[in-house]
Every structure is written in structure tokens, then in C-alpha cells.
């Protein structure tokens, strides 16, 4: 019976992915992308990966979704209500002459089909291995946390997670390197409409509390720094969209400190441990729980500020507004 659920969900996911790429309009692509994210989150839930589902919902669907939506202010939006109007179609697969009907297109599609068959055979024949479940289960009591995923992220493979925080910071540096950005925008002169303000004011505490909830319960239940960071970051993005760019209020050095706090503290802790003769990130077992919580809190703040900055920077890369 549950096979039915899974097959239906699988078909839905594949259908949405295809539609997402084949949709003639950018708006549709972006909206189908949200639907795809939601369907994928259902799949994660079905596979028992709650942490992954929350991450998908928060980062891949929520944060990235807002970035894509914001990008719709550029590029061709819907210019007419009629179905296949001409102007928006010239940069996508149009009905008249799809790209995959040309000769190289046919070769490519045939090649992809062949590749798909090989892929499916390989995926079907993956031998059983048992994974690392048993190993994690055995060492979980020494990790200082109860949620096995958090234990892997912040203790067993803390080195990866630390580098990943670096990647997020790098994402911001890279976005800044693109250029065309005034460092921080000033307050809008015209206030936004009151309904929007009310919605934002209503959601700010909810986002904050739920973020804190995910962060704190990440130790024992699903959730953790990254998911909490997106929710906290969402506050900043909301305020920015409502005409209150929070980052201008903070002095520059402080916002920079907030940006690097997570990765910086993590690294300094690692170096301290190194100086004490232990390995990098080898927490003393009795303090592991506390240290992980501190690292997660600082990391969540840092990542939240980074995400807001990324959004603010991308938000400025607008063709009309810059001219």
C-alpha cells in the first residue's frame, strides 16, 4: 500500500522537475520550483530524514525561492495574460521550434536517454552495505548530543561542517565580487503599505521563536543551526522588503564581526584544542554538548546575517533601479 504513496510521489517529483525546465515562462519555472521543493520535502519525510526535510524547506525552497522570486524583477516577467505570447518565448523552449528538434539536439537527447538507462541500471544494482548506522549508534553517547544527525554534523564530521560555514561566507564574498553593488542601501523614503508592515511585525517574533526552537531542539530532535539561521535570516529579509534595511543600523565592524563569528569561534576553539595537544575540533567529552550548543548558536547568527547580506546584495542587482 505504501508503495502506492511512494510511486505517486516519485512520479510527481519527476513530472514537476521536467515541467520546471520545460515551462515556457520564467514565472512558471519559479513557481513549479516551489512545488518541486515541497514534493521533495514530502519524499524526505517518507524516507525518515526530518532534518533534511527541514533544510530543504528552509534553505533550498525558502531562501533560494526568495532569491529566484526576487530575480523575477529582472528578466522577462509575464507580459500578457494570453497563453503562448511571443515575446517571452524567445529565450525558452518555444512551441514552434523546440531546441531538441535540431540535429545536435536529437543526438544530445538520445545520448541522455542512453545515459539514463545506464544510470538506472547502476542505481538499481547498488549492493547492500549497511552504511555507518551501527558505527554512529555505538559512538552516539560520546558525542554530547542525542540527535544522530547533529552528532555527525557537529562532532564526527565537524571539519566538513566548519568548511561548509566557510562556503556560506564565501558565497557572500563571491556575490560581492560580482560588482555593481553599493555596500548597503539606505532607508526607503516612501514607507511601505500598512498591511505589509503589520504582517511583518506579526511574523518577526514567530520566526525568531521558531528558529530558536529548531536551534535548541536540534540537540535532541531534528533541526539545527542551518535551519534556524534561515528562519532568523528571514526576519532580516522581511524587514528589508518592508523598507527597513536592518543592516544599515549596525555599525560596519559589528556586522563584519557577526558575519565571521560562527566560523571564527569554531576555528579558534579548534586551534585552542590543537594547542592543548588534542586534534582539531576534538572536544573534551564532558563539554561536548555545551560547546556544540555555543557553536550552533553563533553559527546560526552568522549564517543568518550572511543570508540577509546575500539577499540584500542580490536585491540591488536590478537593471531598471540601477539606471
Amino acid at each position, binding site marked *: 500500500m505504501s508503495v502506492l504513496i511512494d510511486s505517486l*510521489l516519485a512520479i510527481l517529483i519527476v513530472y514537476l522537475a521536467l515541467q520546471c525546465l520545460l515551462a515556457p515562462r520564467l514565472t512558471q519555472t519559479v513557481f513549479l520550483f516551489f512545488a518541486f521543493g515541497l514534493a521533495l520535502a514530502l519524499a524526505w519525510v517518507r524516507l525518515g530524514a*526530518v532534518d533534511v526535510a527541514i533544510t530543504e524547506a528552509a534553505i533550498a525552497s525558502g531562501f533560494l525561492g526568495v532569491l529566484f*522570486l526576487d530575480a523575477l524583477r529582472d528578466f522577462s516577467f509575464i507580459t500578457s495574460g494570453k497563453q503562448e505570447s511571443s515575446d517571452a518565448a524567445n529565450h525558452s523552449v518555444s512551441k514552434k521550434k523546440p531546441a531538441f528538434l535540431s540535429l545536435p539536439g536529437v543526438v544530445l537527447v538520445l545520448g541522455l536517454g542512453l545515459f539514463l538507462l545506464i544510470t538506472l541500471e547502476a542505481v538499481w544494482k547498488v549492493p547492500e552495505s549497511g552504511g555507518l548506522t551501527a558505527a554512529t549508534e555505538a559512538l552516539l553517547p560520546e558525542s554530547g548530543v542525542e540527535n544522530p544527525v547533529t552528532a555527525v554534523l557537529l562532532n564526527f564530521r565537524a571539519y566538513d561542517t566548519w568548511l561548509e560555514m566557510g562556503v556560506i561566507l564565501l558565497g557572500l564574498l563571491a556575490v560581492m565580487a560580482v560588482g555593481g553593488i553599493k555596500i548597503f542601501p539606505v532607508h526607503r523614503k516612501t514607507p511601505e503599505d500598512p498591511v505589509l508592515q503589520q*504582517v511583518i511585525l506579526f511574523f518577526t517574533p514567530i520566526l525568531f521563536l521558531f528558529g530558536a526552537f529548531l536551534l535548541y531542539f536540534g540537540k535532541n530532535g531534528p533541526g539545527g543551526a542551518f535551519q534556524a539561521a534561515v*528562519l532568523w535570516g528571514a526576519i532580516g529579509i522581511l524587514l528589508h*522588503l518592508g523598507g527597513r534595511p536592518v543592516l544599515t543600523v549596525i555599525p560596519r565592524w559589528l556586522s563584519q564581526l557577526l558575519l565571521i563569528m560562527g566560523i571564527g569561534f569554531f576555528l579558534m576553539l579548534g586551534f585552542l584544542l590543537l594547542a592543548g595537544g588534542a586534534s582539531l575540533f576534538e572536544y573534551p567529552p564532558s563539554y561536548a554538548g555545551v560547546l556544540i550548543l555555543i557553536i550552533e548558536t553563533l553559527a546560526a547568527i552568522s549564517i543568518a546575517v550572511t543570508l540577509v547580506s546575500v539577499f540584500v546584495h542580490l536585491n540591488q542587482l536590478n537593471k531598471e533601479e540601477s539606471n
Partner: protein
Amino acid sequence: MDVFFTIVIVFLLLNIAVGLIRVWRGPTVADRLLTTQLFGTTGMAILLVLAGYLEDPDFLNVAITFNVLAILLVIGLVKVWKKKKGESP
């Protein structure tokens, strides 16, 4: 009870699938935008039932995450819409 939940989930998934026919047929762009709407509500329902079916209330957190961020998306959409309204006839 499990069988019943499974039936409910399959039913809701089929609902989405059938609703997608409208998205596929159009005729207007706004009709296609309904996907998100359809998915949002029905997806939340599926998540709720799954939480009961798999006996793990933690799954509710997934639904809440989606929900609170949906507001972000909606406000983002308002912005896009306002911007475009200003420039296109």
C-alpha cells in the same frame, strides 16, 4: 488505522495530480500559478497526515518551516508584482 491513513495520503496525492491537469491545460498564466496554491495547501495536509501515519510529531516542524517561509515568498511576490505593475501597461 494505517491503511486508512495511506488511503488518505494517496487520495490527496491523486488530488494534486488531477489538479495538475488544470495547470497543464491553462489557459492563462494565472491558472498555472495555481500550482503553488494547490501544492501549498494539499502538501500541508499530506505532511500532517504523514506525521500521524509515521507516528512522529517531529514532522510537524517541516510543515511549520514551510509555512512561516511561505509568508516570505508571498511578500517577495508582492514586491515583484508591484515592480512589474509600475512598468508594464
